[in-house]
């Protein structure tokens, strides 16, 4: 099964895990699958927060059903509190 690489930029309370998380998931994975992978990668810490967060590329938020077919740079955006 082929895999793709994700470079995941971390924001807000995910920063305690570093600036970037490098992940590999099967080609054709959905964003939801990526979230499950993130949750495992950080040992189930902040698991609820991962699923309350959204993943985005540099243009827009990607829905949980979005399918990934190639290497990509993503950001994980936890719940926001600007202003």
């Amino acid at each position, binding site marked *: 099964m082929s895999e793709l690489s994700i470079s995941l930029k971390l924001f807000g309370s995910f920063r305690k895990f570093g600036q970037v998380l490098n992940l590999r998931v099967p080609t054709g994975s959905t964003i939801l699958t990526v979230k499950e992978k993130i949750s495992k990668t950080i040992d189930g810490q902040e698991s609820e927060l991962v699923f309350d967060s959204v993943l985005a590329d540099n243009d827009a938020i990607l829905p949980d059903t979005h399918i990934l077919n190639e290497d990509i740079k993503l950001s994980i955006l936890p719940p*926001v509190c600007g202003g």
Partner: protein
Amino acid sequence: MNNLILTEVLDTALDIQKAYDFVANSANGAVNSFVGIVRNNHEGKSVTGLTYDLHTTLAKKAFDDICQKALELWPETKYYVAHYHGELSVGGISIIIAVSSPHRAESFEACRYIIEEIKTKAPVWKQEHYIDRKSEWLPGHSLNG
């Protein structure tokens, strides 16, 4: 994005006069502005400062989109939004919003709309620093759906 909207993410001190100067317009008789300031306390804890984390590209895009939507809701208005990125001590300015409009009602309404939208839709996070040297990322609004 056009000459009716200017949004900025800055790591230098935000400037109230700049906000006013951008939106001031001889056809618009009213300017309402909102400034957010780092408070010395939050939920009973003594706060020494805040770190503002932003996804710079998507935050600026969110500010632009929110202003564009407001412009459709309140025609003939003009917008300035600046959000600070980085660390601020108590008293520091985290956000400035200024809106000009022909008459005063719209300036108040549109300015309030902008801050409420930013609070729930822009990728911005706050880490509070307390007097006991501990820190905490504040909970927020999920961007899910």
